[in-house]
Every structure is written in structure tokens, then in C-alpha cells.
């Protein structure tokens, strides 16, 4: 008993001490004021659930917060409208010279920063130069932009060469205040609390890392008018399951994800709850795509690639993995939501017999009767399928393709890797077939229509850069260097046709995307790029009962 007492005391002390650790209120990484009370009368609060992994309030360093800030606290010059056309935003108007070398943006006169300072064309000029010089993601600007100048209310960009995609690119770069960033050498490491100040429809209120919650309040002085919502909160959940539970329990009102599709597997419980409605829109990106190694291996042969595309059961993928919300794609890669969609490019069909015949004609036959085809060297045909291990949907698709290939006598070795290893392996061209996905923005980057994924001159984490045919590269260059709508349309259609002719990769499915929200919320606007119902346009259209 004598020894028991001190030991118990010790244990109790440890218990107290450790609960003490929890007692110390957390210092948020950014000092934030306590959430101010909202006036009762106009308290329309939208709570948004997301599974994106936010870490901070730095729009430069935290990729996902950067995206979020473009929706809330910051404005870009133009935005992609619901009609897929460039829409005026901070730039109320713009002109492009005939040679596509000079872009002139007229800046809205009444915009102000959240700290009260007026937003001037000089801020715009500073922002573009700042991105060009300091942001690793904006490296392309160094090559393209010759000079930026201010002329009254106009900001004039002089380019080094014709660049047709500038408007699209500028949809994602938001304007930042010069008086805050001018002295910041390393935007990635800047810790100042004023890094959250922008000119957008919402002002930053707080970020609580432990609670996983951002709060933004409506900007009463917004130059486009006051948003319909007085406060928007973003709640971060680590798993989709937790998010769906939160949705059905009413902890959040809707779901947001940049360029992601809501998992169909999680839809029925929400439908059953009877309190959730869904908005629908054709997804702009490609949720599951297949690329080929064009440098070595059997996939170098066009007919072999063609045979593979014939061997895959696209309807099964659409039905099982995408719950029937998917459709079989065309060889043109991007879905019909894209402007200048080329419906002359044929649909991909599933035809096992034709695939088998094609493989037979290439000399891949099963001579030893083990159900697998052998190559000329007598060894079994075994393809390396590179896929993402951290994405269950992609894995399911990979499994199905592997099974489909087996059905035509092709063995496969599936390598499911995490994103970083996937990138390294992909860049080393250490695969025969590679599974990837194209985000809505991704399909629009570079020369648009998915060309950013295939052009061999590009580098990047998510792109294949596997096609180096001169005809294709020329088409990309031509498309990049014109801002003329008719010319762009012609080249857009050509690029889709070239995807068919060279077959660097195919979409495996196109899908209808679902966006859940609680009943009682109405009049959403759907934005294809920024993720469904939660976007810059909805702030001004959405209403609640």
C-alpha cells in the first residue's frame, strides 16, 4: 500500500498534466479575431463541406487555399462564365489586337481592398509582374509576357509572341494588393496576417486548424454588390464518409471540391435522407483516362493501341464505377461540354472480337493454350499498368481494364502508386498503359482540349507529355498563337481529330457530375471550373427559403 500511494499520485499527476496539454487553447497559425456576432436580421450562413486538405491561409503556398481564395477573398481579371465564355470581373472590358500580341484590360473603377485601400490598375500591373517573377507556378509568364504597362484605367500586356490562351490562363490568377506584397521576397513563406487581404466578395474572418474550419464574411463594400450570403464557412473533413454524414445530419449545407466529382457510391444515403437535392452538370474533365507509352513496348504500334481501346468495356465502367452516370467517350478525349466539340470524331466502341482479330494480325497469338497471348519472343504478353493507389475510383477502373485485357489474352502487371511515386514513374516512362485523370482546368490548359496532357514538350506533375508527332505539335502551336475565335474553333476540332489519329491516350468515360445541397437552398449557378454549385456566381444568385 505504501508504494501504491505514490505511484497512484504520480499517475494522477500525469493525467492532470496531460489534460493540461489539451487545456491550453490552441494558438491558430494566423492570429484571428473571435468570430464576430452576426446581426440576426441578415444572418444567411452557408456551410460548405469539403475533403480538400487545407493547411494554412497562404494563397501562394497552399495550393488548395489558393483555389479557395479565388472563390472568396480574391478576384481575377476575368472568369469563365457558366456559358463557358470569358466573363468580365475585375476587368470590366478587354480588347485583343489582331496579331494576338497585345491584350488591353480595362479595370473596374470602384473596386477596393478589404483594408479600404482602392484597387488600382497599378495593383493589376504589380500582380502580373509579381506572379511572373515570384510564383513558380507562373513560369510560363516569363516567356510570354514582354511588358505590362498602365494606361489610365487600362492595363496593357505586350507579349513576346502570339498567345491565344491568355484569357483562359488569367482566369486563375487573382489580383493581389501591391501595398502588402511589394516587399515580400518569398511569397511562399510569407507569414504576415495581411496575406489574406484581397478585393473579393468575402473577407477572411478565421481559420481554425484544429477544427478544420474557415470563416468568410460578406464584403459589404464589394464593387459588384453585396453577396446574397452574409457568411460562408468551409468545414474540412478527412473522409468522404464523415462529410456525407455531416451533410445528412445538417452540419453542412453543400459540398465543394475543386475539379472533383462527388462519389456516386455516396449518393444513395443522401437521396434516402430526403433532405438533399442534387444539381447536375456534365463534368468538364475526364475522371478516368488511359494513356499509352509511345516510346517503347508493344504500345508503340498504333494498331496495338487501337486493339486495346477496342478491348475495354466502357459501359461496364460507366455503370459500375460511375453508377450509370457515365457515357462511353469519343476518341477526341474531351466531353461535349467543351466549346468546339468535334462530333465527327468517332465514339469508342467495345468490340472484343475485333480487338482479338487485330492482335492476331499483329502476331500476338496464344500458341501454348494458356489463355494468354505471346509475343514474337514466345513470352507471354504482359503489360505494365501504372495507376494511382491513393484513388479508389481509379483503382476500380484499373481492375476492370485489367480484367478486360485478360479477356482478350493480355496479362497485366498493375502498379498502383501514390501520387508522387506515380509522377516519378510516369516521367521515367516506366509503363505500357498509364491511368490518369484530367481536371476541368487541365483539359483547358496549353492548347486546350486535353492537348496539355499529351504535348511532348510540356512537363508537369499530372501530364503524360508522350506525343511528339510534328503535325500535332504544329497544331498546338497554331492554336496557342491565335486569339481569333474562328481559327480557334478550326484548330480545336483538329486537335480532337488528331487525338483519334495518333491515339496518345483516351478518355475511359465521360460523366454527369452531381452536386448535393440541402433542400431549401435555391437558384444555384453551376460553374464548371470551380466545382459545381459553390462558386463566384452563386454568391449573387443563390437564395434560401
Amino acid at each position, binding site marked *: 500500500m505504501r508504494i501504491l500511494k505514490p505511484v497512484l499520485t504520480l499517475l494522477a499527476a500525469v493525467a492532470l498534466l496531460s489534460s493540461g496539454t489539451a487545456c491550453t487553447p490552441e494558438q491558430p497559425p494566423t492570429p484571428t479575431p473571435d468570430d464576430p456576432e452576426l446581426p440576426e436580421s441578415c444572418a444567411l450562413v452557408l456551410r460548405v463541406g469539403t475533403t480538400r486538405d487545407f493547411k494554412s491561409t497562404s494563397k501562394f503556398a497552399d495550393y488548395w487555399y489558393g483555389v479557395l481564395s479565388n472563390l472568396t477573398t480574391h478576384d481575377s481579371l476575368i472568369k469563365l462564365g457558366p456559358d463557358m465564355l470569358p466573363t468580365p470581373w475585375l476587368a470590366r472590358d478587354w480588347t485583343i489586337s489582331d496579331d494576338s500580341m497585345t491584350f488591353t484590360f480595362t479595370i473596374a473603377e470602384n473596386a477596393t481592398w478589404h483594408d479600404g485601400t482602392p484597387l488600382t490598375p497599378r495593383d493589376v500591373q504589380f500582380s502580373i509582374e509579381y506572379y511572373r517573377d515570384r510564383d513558380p507556378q507562373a513560369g510560363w509568364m516569363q516567356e510570354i509576357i514582354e511588358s505590362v504597362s498602365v494606361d489610365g484605367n487600362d492595363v496593357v500586356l505586350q507579349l513576346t509572341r502570339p498567345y491565344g490562351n491568355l484569357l483562359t490562363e488569367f482566369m486563375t490568377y487573382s489580383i493581389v494588393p501591391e501595398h502588402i506584397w511589394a516587399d515580400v521576397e518569398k511569397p511562399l513563406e510569407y507569414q504576415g496576417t495581411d496575406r489574406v487581404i484581397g478585393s473579393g466578395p468575402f473577407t477572411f474572418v478565421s481559420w481554425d486548424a484544429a477544427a478544420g474550419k474557415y470563416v468568410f464574411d460578406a464584403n459589404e463594400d464589394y464593387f459588384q454588390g453585396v453577396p446574397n450570403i452574409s457568411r460562408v464557412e468551409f468545414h474540412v473533413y478527412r473522409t468522404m464518409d464523415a462529410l456525407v454524414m455531416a451533410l445528412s445530419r445538417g452540419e453542412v449545407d453543400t459540398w465543394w471540391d475543386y475539379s472533383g466529382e462527388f462519389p456516386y457510391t455516396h449518393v*444513395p444515403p443522401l437521396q434516402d435522407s430526403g433532405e438533399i437535392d442534387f444539381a447536375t452538370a456534365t463534368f468538364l474533365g475526364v475522371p478516368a483516362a488511359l494513356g499509352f507509352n509511345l516510346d517503347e513496348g508493344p504500345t508503340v504500334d498504333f494498331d496495338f493501341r487501337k486493339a486495346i481501346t477496342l478491348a475495354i468495356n466502357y459501359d461496364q465502367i460507366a455503370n459500375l464505377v460511375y453508377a450509370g452516370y457515365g457515357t462511353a467517350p469519343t476518341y477526341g478525349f474531351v466531353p461535349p461540354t467543351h466549346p468546339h466539340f468535334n462530333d465527327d470524331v468517332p465514339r469508342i466502341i467495345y468490340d472484343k472480337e475485333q480487338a482479338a482479330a487485330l492482335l492476331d494480325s499483329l502476331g500476338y497469338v496464344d500458341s501454348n493454350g494458356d489463355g494468354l497471348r505471346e509475343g514474337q519472343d514466345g513470352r507471354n504478353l504482359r503489360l505494365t499498368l501504372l495507376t494511382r493507389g491513393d484513388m479508389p475510383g481509379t483503382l476500380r477502373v484499373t481492375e476492370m481494364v485489367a480484367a478486360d485485357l485478360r479477356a482478350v489474352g493480355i496479362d497485366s502487371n498493375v502498379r498502383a502508386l501514390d501520387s508522387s511515386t506515380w509522377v516519378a514513374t510516369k516521367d521515367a516512362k516506366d509503363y505500357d498503359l498509364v491511368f490518369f485523370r484530367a481536371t476541368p482546368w487541365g483539359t483547358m490548359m496549353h492548347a486546350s482540349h486535353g492537348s496539355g496532357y499529351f504535348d511532348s514538350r510540356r512537363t508537369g506533375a499530372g501530364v503524360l507529355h508522350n506525343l511528339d508527332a510534328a503535325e500535332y505539335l504544329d497544331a498546338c502551336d497554331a492554336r496557342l498563337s491565335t486569339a481569333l475565335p474562328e481559327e480557334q474553333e478550326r484548330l480545336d476540332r483538329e486537335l480532337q481529330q488528331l487525338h483519334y489519329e495518333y491515339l496518345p491516350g483516351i478518355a475511359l468515360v465521360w460523366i454527369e457530375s452531381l452536386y448535393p445541397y440541402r433542400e431549401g437552398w435555391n437558384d444555384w449557378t453551376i460553374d464548371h471550373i470551380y466545382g459545381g454549385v459553390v462558386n463566384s456566381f452563386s454568391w449573387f444568385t443563390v437564395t434560401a427559403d
Partner: protein
Amino acid sequence: MRLASHVKTNRLAMVGMIILWVFILGAVFAQLLMPHDPWRHFVPFMSPSVTHVLGTDDVGRDIFSELILGARVSLTVGFMAGLIAVGIGVLVGLLAGFRRGYLDEILMGLTDVVLVIPALPLVILVSVYLGPGIWYTILVIGLVFWPSTARVIRSQVLSVRQSGYVESARALGAGDGWLMRRHVLPNVLPLILAKFVLTVAAAMLMEASLSFLGLGDPMAKSWGMMLHYAFARGGFIREMWWWYVPPGVCISLCILSLTLISFSIEEGSDPRLRRALDR
């Protein structure tokens, strides 16, 4: 062997043995027992019925068939990883305990190092490096789980080594190899067995954890991978308990039976082992 008879007389161990054998037989005769081809697609998200005892998963595969196939994968991972870990552990433990001196210091230093590195993060880290693949998983788990065996075996070897009969045999002129083969090894065997059984359980649990985090081999359907899919593909949120409960129950039962067996081996052998196994 006295050990075998002891296991036989111990009721709990018998229960453990029976459960384990059911799983082992299920794994061996999976081809015969599976009612459907586990790769065939039926209608997704079906509830249990006569044709599909445990319903179907998100891509319409028969869950019961997957469960049987899962026994094969999970047990393979557990036993192979256990074999590697105990193999290394026994080798290191025997060497360190028998040779003593500098070799002992070095080996035990190494053991301490590996022992102190938190296993799960290390396994995650190395798994990410190697990429998923069932053999990588086995190798990694095997390479991480040996130190406790090495320590226990070493201390047991030390005590056997100091025993009168080893001393006598040495006085008879027996060399190190002889002592190891004839006296040390037979006397640490029950301990090795108990450690092996426990390591198999730990390896199965580790594999399940890795799979849960999405680091398992997606093409080898273990129980952990089934759970991963059940959670990642809506089984959980759709309250399909027939999907996410059975694999968990199978893992738990396997580990339970292995634990019971190892406890019984411990009790049945030298009482000194009990203390040795505490560490």
C-alpha cells in the same frame, strides 16, 4: 512432444486451433468454396440473398467469395511476414546470445535501433517507397517486426547457455555448433513458436492497417483491402454491415485464435518463458 499434449489439453487453445484451421482450410480450398468467381461483376450494392450470402460490393462482386479469397491473401501475408521476422529474429538472437562480446553489442544495438523506430510510420514510409505489392508488404513487415523476437531469443539463449547441461556438454568437448543444434535450439523452440504465432498476428494486423490507409496491394484482395474498399466506396455510409463487418470479424477471429495458441504455448513450456515473453 509435451507441448503438443499441452495444447490438446488446453480448452482455449483448442478453440484457437479450430478457428485457425477453419481459416487455413478455407484459404487452401478457396477455389472449391467460393460460390462465385470473385472477379465477376454482378449488380452492385446488393443486399444479402440466397445467391449472394453477403451481397455484392460497389462493382458487383460477390462479397462472400471475396471474403474466402481474402483468407488466402491475409494468411499468406501474416505467415510469410511472420516467417521472415522470426527468421531474422532467431538468427540475430541466437548469434547475439551465443557469441556475446562485440557481436552481441552490435546486434543488440541494432535491435534497439529497429525496436525504437515506431513500426507503423516506418512501414508506411517504406511501403510508399516500394509501392504496393503483396511481396513488398510481406518483406517490409518482416523487416520491421524481428527485434522483439531477437531480444527474447537472446535472453533465453543466455539462460540456456548458462544451464548445467550446456556447461556439461561443453565439458564433454562439444563445439558451438553442436551446442546450438543439440541444446540451445531445441530449448528455445517453444519460445520461437510462441513468438512466431504472435508475429503472424501482428503482421496480419499491420497488413490490414496498411490496406486501410490505401497502401495495400489493390490486386491482392486481403481482408484489409476489402475494408478499405468498403470504407472508400460507400459501403460504410450505406450501412452495408454485411460488407464491412465480416472482414473485420475475420481479422479479429484470426488474431484471437493466434493469441490463444501463443498463450497456451507459453504456459505449456518452461515458466521462465512467461517472463521472457513479457518484453
